[in-house]
């Protein structure tokens, strides 16, 4: 059996599969269940300063080419959220996801996390600058632009010693510039991937957009080529590790993402297509593929596309 083991900021992971933020991670128990279902590491729901109920439903609509969602960051707020996740004991590391409206909020969120000290036992903080469907946050607040990325990154780094992951959007131009700005401002990794869009699904009988918010982010296999290209571009010029997220539904998708240069891969919508055991299925498929083609470790294929292209 090929090894899927890899490193994550000094911690050893059983595989490079990360539960993407926003999927399942509302409670400690569901994160633990995701660990049991094969995740190498897990990310919480994104926590904001104040509690948020999220957008009015429908929050999700199935389309013939992926899922469209507009959750609107439902979360109990940073104080309550950290109570939920504090004292994490699993061997799979915990990533705390945060969302803020501006530099000030991100500073305060980072400070609140830092104040928990070792009690929290989280392994990284992920700042989401890429939600396509929540006013005041993410791409709707222009957080994906390089200047904004640098500003927010430095604000968080000033307030927490935890490794910082900056989550970028595939929907805005200039991801490489944004990733470079994050690195220069002290980010430890990039999560390249969020839902694509926003998009809109109209119910032709009701002549109305189905989603309560009107529009939402597209996820699932259809967005994979965009995510893979973004990861390839970023890893071509920015020298911090990247989580490749977007459309990973099977082992070969994860292999492709890592060949593009990703060090780990985020999985979310696969839970919808394949059930809560999706992580384990993807890990097993990666294993089978590596065995079949004679690789002994996932490290051997990481960034393989970059090497191959150089030869031609």
């Amino acid at each position, binding site marked *: 059996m090929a090894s899927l083991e890899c490193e994550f900021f000094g911690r050893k992971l059983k595989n490079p599969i990360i539960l993407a933020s926003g999927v399942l991670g509302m409670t400690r128990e569901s994160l633990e269940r995701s660990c049991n279902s094969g995740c190498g590491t897990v990310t919480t729901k994104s926590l904001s300063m104040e509690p948020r*109920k999220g957008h009015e439903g429908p929050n999700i609509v199935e389309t013939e080419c992926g899922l469209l969602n507009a*959750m609107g960051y439902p979360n109990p707020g940073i104080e309550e959220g950290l109570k939920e996740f504090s004292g994490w004991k699993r061997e799979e590391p915990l990533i705390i996801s945060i969302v803020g409206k501006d530099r000030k909020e991100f500073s305060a969120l980072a400070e609140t996390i830092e104040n928990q000290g070792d009690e929290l036992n989280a392994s990284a903080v992920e700042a989401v600058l890429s939600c396509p469907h929540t006013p005041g946050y993410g791409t709707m607040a222009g957080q994906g632009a390089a200047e904004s990325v640098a500003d927010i990154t430095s604000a968080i780094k000033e307030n927490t010693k935890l490794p910082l992951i900056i989550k970028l959007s595939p929907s805005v131009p200039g991801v490489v510039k944004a990733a470079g700005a994050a690195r220069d401002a002290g980010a430890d990794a990039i999560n390249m991937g969020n839902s694509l869009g926003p998009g809109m699904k109209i119910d032709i009988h*009701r002549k109305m957009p189905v989603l309560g918010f009107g529009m939402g982010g597209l996820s699932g296999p259809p967005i994979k080529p965009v995510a893979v290209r973004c990861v390839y571009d970023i890893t071509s010029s920015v020298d911090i590790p990247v989580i490749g997220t977007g459309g990973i539904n099977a082992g070969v998708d994860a292999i492709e993402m890592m060949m593009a240069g990703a060090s780990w891969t985020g999985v979310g919508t696969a839970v919808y297509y394949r059930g809560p055991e999706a992580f384990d299925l993807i890990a097993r498929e990666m294993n089978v593929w590596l065995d079949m083609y004679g690789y002994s470790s996932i490290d051997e294929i990481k960034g393989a596309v970059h090497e191959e292209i150089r030869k031609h």
Partner: protein
Amino acid sequence: MRKFENIKPVYSRKVRKVIEENYRVKTIEIEHDMRDALPGQFLMVWVPGEGERPMSIGNSNPLTISVASVGKVSSKLHELRAGDMVSYRGPFGRPFRIPKDAKSMLVIGGGYGVVPMYFLARVAKQNGMGVYSVVGGKTGKDIIWEKQLFTVSKEAFITTDDGSRGKKGTVMIEAEWLIGEKKIDQVYACGPEKMMLAAAKVCHDHGMPCQVSVERHMKCGVGICGSCDINGHLCCQDGPVFTGEEVLSMPDFGKRKRDASGKNVDI
């Protein structure tokens, strides 16, 4: 694996009939024979511009839901008349299971929890099973669907908290008597969570298998957003039907639930 070509659509169909059940519940029959709907499953019912709520399926043909007017989405649904359009997606969730060798069952419905119980009892009777039923409510006015349920039951009982109809007390007075007295293979319950907790405990004490239908704050309906989590179980996907043993192992069952923001609050 879900295939792209068989995604569940958002249905928009005509309302066939609206029945006023009591001071706060209306039943809506829809011109739709939803053949893949099973007892215990639910729909996500959408009112454009207002929102979307999970609703138990009360029958598959005609597709039927009962709506208590409790908020903005349900009060809009109460305005529907025959011929109006109603939109929904589904059916979703794990249905009630009827063991192959089961010959008789007891169904317990509290308030409008009786709605999925009727669907289950009807299907069970069609399969040749004997159905005992208990319907309960706060007062006589809260008893709904009892006539439908009684037509598919061998014996049926009513209880009310104030004694204004049937026996005074909770559904468990009659239910526990039936469990002790009759030959029953399986118990099903739907209603207020404290009632279902009582049912699960009584069944556990009698060594009687039991299934209950759990309600939580559902958003996506398809097992991905995590909003309806109860101690690591997803109500929309692993449930809404859980076995009595499953719910008794959930520390939050009957005690706490997650609000729209995910905060754990007392029920």
